[in-house]
């Protein structure tokens, strides 16, 4: 028996007489090679999560700086650094256990540069948007790993060492995500700059842009959430959201958000707004219990923090609520903006009072001209 095995045994994380003794010893040695201390092994063992420690160790490999180090390096006060953490969505933690990488310190510095240029409020708001968007990516990564890697391993009774190794490998996959993000961020910035030129948006400087805003939802989704297996539910919402994103992209629009069974999208061009909604409805036409409907409006909206606000958005949402299954309702404003386009047929659908709006609005039921 090696020295380390005795140490593991004394710490209560290894029992040489247990049926899985060899596997456990190999796992503990593997983790120790990755840099785990006995204390870390004990803590991870207590919550039955030895393999996860492999991932934690890999992820924190570059975290060599203490809070004091970062304060010295950046010249920023400690409470400022902790407040920045909260701005990007992280809970307050014990300052003594916090560890940072050189790259973290550089990020803190650049936030300060942003503050000098854009002011406190805009910088904080932007930091929150970044934190929220990235938290979604982190959660999505963690779900994919849990369901696509860890679960199959446990299903086939993989041993502890294999599971730990899979976690360490996951860190390698995680390392490519920032590169992806950088590439995509860059590509999307370029896309926006080009779009600004393409549609010659008026430079109003007040954040207002005139565009088509639409909502499409799955009718009767709530009852479906009881009847469907979790896996089937995931498939349905992924498919719905995925199709929406793909179709919006095709017409140079964007899915602004998904709200369970509903997507909100926007497109600079009114005809594109119509085409996105129609194509999405078509994609869910012959699906039995799953029926889609939607509403589109055209007008000025406040574009801020990657989201859209104001009465144009509210109006589009209300119009969508009035549509019957398979129907796309649009407003008079959209009809006149997309007027010259003979790819669509606008059938009058009456005037309706929308919740929160004083005047009744003229609506049209929209179909493709050939349907």
């Amino acid at each position: 028996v090696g020295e380390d095995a005795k140490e593991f045994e004394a710490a209560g994380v290894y029992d040489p007489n247990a049926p899985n003794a060899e596997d456990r010893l190999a796992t503990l040695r593997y983790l120790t090679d990755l840099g785990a201390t006995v204390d870390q092994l004990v803590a991870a063992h207590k919550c039955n999560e030895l393999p996860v420690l492999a991932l934690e160790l890999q992820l924190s490999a570059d975290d060599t700086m203490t809070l004091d180090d970062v304060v010295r390096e950046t010249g920023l006060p400690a409470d400022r650094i902790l407040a920045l953490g909260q701005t990007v969505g992280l809970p307050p933690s014990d300052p003594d256990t916090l560890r940072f990488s050189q790259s973290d310190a550089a990020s803190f510095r650049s936030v300060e540069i942003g503050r000098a240029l854009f002011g406190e409020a805009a910088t904080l708001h932007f930091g929150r948007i970044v934190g929220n968007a990235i938290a979604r990516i982190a959660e999505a990564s963690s779900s994919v790993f849990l369901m696509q890697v860890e679960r199959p391993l446990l299903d086939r009774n993989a041993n502890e060492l294999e599971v730990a190794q899979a976690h360490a490998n996951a860190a390698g996959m995680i390392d490519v995500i920032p590169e992806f993000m950088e590439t995509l961020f860059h590509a999307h910035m370029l896309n926006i700059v080009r779009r600004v030129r393409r549609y010659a948006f008026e430079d109003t400087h007040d954040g207002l842009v005139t565009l088509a805003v639409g909502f499409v939802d799955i009718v009767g989704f709530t009852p479906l959430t009881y009847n469907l297996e979790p896996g089937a539910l995931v498939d349905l919402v992924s498919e719905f959201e995925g199709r929406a994103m793909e179709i919006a992209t095709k017409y140079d629009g964007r899915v602004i958000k998904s709200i369970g069974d509903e997507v909100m999208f926007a497109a600079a061009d009114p005809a594109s707004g119509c085409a996105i909604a129609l194509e999405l409805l078509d994609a869910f036409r012959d699906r039995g219990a799953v029926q889609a409907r939607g509403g589109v409006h055209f007008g000025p909206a406040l574009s801020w923090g990657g989201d859209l606000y104001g009465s144009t958005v509210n109006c589009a949402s209300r119009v969508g609520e009035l549509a019957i299954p398979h129907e796309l309702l649009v407003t008079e404003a959209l009809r006149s903006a997309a007027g010259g386009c003979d790819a669509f047929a606008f059938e009058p659908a009456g005037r309706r009072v929308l919740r929160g709006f004083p005047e009744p609005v003229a609506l049209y039921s929209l179909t493709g001209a050939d349907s």
Partner: protein
Amino acid sequence: MADDAQQFEAAGIYDPNAPNADDRLATLRYLAERGASLQQLVTAARARRLPALAAQLALTPGPLLTTKEAATEAGMTAERVAALSRIVGLAPIDPDEPTFTLGAVESFRSVDLGIAMFGRDPTIHFGRVLGNSMARIAEAAQSAFRVVVDAGMAERHATELEVVQAQVEGIELVGVIPQLMETVLRAHLAQAIGREITDIDAAFQGVSKVAVGFVDLVGFTPLSQSLAPDELMRLISNFEGQAMDAVAAYGGRVVKLIGDEVMFTAQDAASGCAIALDILDAFKGDQRVEGRGGLHIGPTLAWGGDRYGATVNCASRVSELAVPHELLVTDAVRTATPGDAGFTFEPAGRRILRGFPEPIPLYSLTRA
């Protein structure tokens, strides 16, 4: 007159006798030095988009590849390159237009790696989530720039050259955003992983038990119709800021913002209660809008960074029943909250929730 000025004049984008002639010439030269072709200058000047051209040039210092070139470089078909770029939310482009950076080509290659490891559908869905999040951050950066920097320039009647230079400086600042994203991603991953440790019950179907809350602002919709854009922006920023800070303070997560409504999750009932009450408190003194909310706890399905299932729908319906300043919670929340957590649960009757078969008892929650 210098050669370039004559060229600009011949192209119809420079008039030496115009009042702003010096400024225009300096701007054109500045852009030409940064690699703008005469054709690009003409197109941009005619559309009055010289600043946007500056931004584009600053964004793409390296060579750009057409779809076909990118396909050759990545060792895949042009159709596949187009399909991959659609997945990450990039608009369709003219296949002959130089669009892709070498980095983009590199990332296309690793998609196949992801598919091999995680399967096709999960990888594609992840790509979409990633693309959509990046588009959101890019739009946020752009709108901040437009509203804060551009507006300031317009106000003090900055010269064309100054506006163009500000674009370039702005893009240079944008260059630090990826590093910030990496820092934030690592921190959030550590969080997401740490969460799984406390969450032994998390079934591998992706179902885990969390508290789900909705808080919205009553009176926001009519108000948003009448507010000036900058006032609306302040109101929204304040609401989102208060919500995100309260959520972060208790280790929860803002799942999404829906206009005047926030949906969040928390690891336990007491944290969920504290978050919701903190947000309501932040708007107690506001004369224009009033907060209200609903909270439920139960199994939810986590996928693509979102949460799904009956627990989410229930929480949303409960919040719709709350009166202004009220936080309504379910019996599940009451039972899961420790007695010494400092909250008072006052019975608020049994109610039928839209889409749910049975009436459920609700409680009005306040701090003890």
